[in-house]
């Protein structure tokens, strides 16, 4: 670790800065997309679109927004995120089962 941190060349530093800028650009784009999804979601509810159509659409928009947040803002798309992905997908699977269980206990 120590040997490649203190002896970074100017070229390498410039390259990394460029990479960080590139990543920042992607993150700003995902932010714009998330804002857009939020507008669509609120817009559909305010304009009272039919509820059979609107509820699944709202859920899909939320899931896509969360994917942007996880993969771009929280860097899950980068290398070395196999364990985080395992934890989150494991968590999401148990979460889904939990919700299905609670809801079906009451509704059936």
């Amino acid at each position: 670790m120590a040997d490649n941190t203190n002896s970074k060349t100017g070229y390498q530093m410039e390259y990394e800065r460029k990479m960080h800028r590139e990543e920042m650009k992607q993150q700003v784009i995902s932010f714009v997309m998330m804002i857009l999804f939020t507008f669509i979601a609120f817009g559909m509810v305010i304009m009272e679109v039919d509820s059979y159509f609107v509820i699944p659409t709202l859920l899909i928009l939320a899931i896509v927004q969360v994917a942007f947040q996880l993969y771009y803002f929280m860097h899950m798309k980068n290398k070395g995120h196999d364990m985080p992905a395992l934890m989150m997908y494991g968590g999401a699977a148990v979460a889904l089962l939990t919700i299905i269980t609670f809801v079906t206990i009451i509704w059936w």
Partner: protein
Amino acid sequence: MSHDDVLNPKSMPHDPEKATLEGKNKFLGFWFFLGGETVLFASLFGTYLALNGSTQGENTPENLFGLELVFIMTMLLLTSSLTSVYAMYHMKNNDFRKMQTWLGITVLLGVCFLGFEIYEFYHYIHEYGFTFRSSAFGSAFYTLVGFHGGHVLFGLSWIVALMIRNQKRGLNLYNAPKFYIASLYWHFIDVVWVFIFTVVYLMGKVG
């Protein structure tokens, strides 16, 4: 080379949060914790979805919720997520001042969000008499949204503590993982809020 030189390189390595073993462990452990938090919030969402029909009277989700306030809160929290991304961007470029500035903006937006949430609860309690004990819907609503609000408060205190504690230290490989993990926590709060505004408020309005 002394210990201090190792922790204070002139430029940050590619992934400053994972450059030390301690950082790697924090990173992994924190994602483990986030997996657990997902399940915790799922149980609260499950409870809410099961009980939001049991309203005991006029205070239904449709009558209570105002979308304007929720929209403002959503924008505040979403923007604060982006500002903490900017903070991490400056961390990777080893620019401590700018990182602190962006974290400060994040905290400011978070405080506004929390203020709106407190106003919302106050409004429900005093204008509608809708409390934790009004109905099963009331209990489930305040538990879920209040728990998220508690997370916001904890995240804010965490970031402020880090900012004050490291103000004179500057950025190094000892505290870079701490900042990074606090920002992950902040993003996770936004992840939960996306589901809250969708499931609780928007789907509550649709009915």
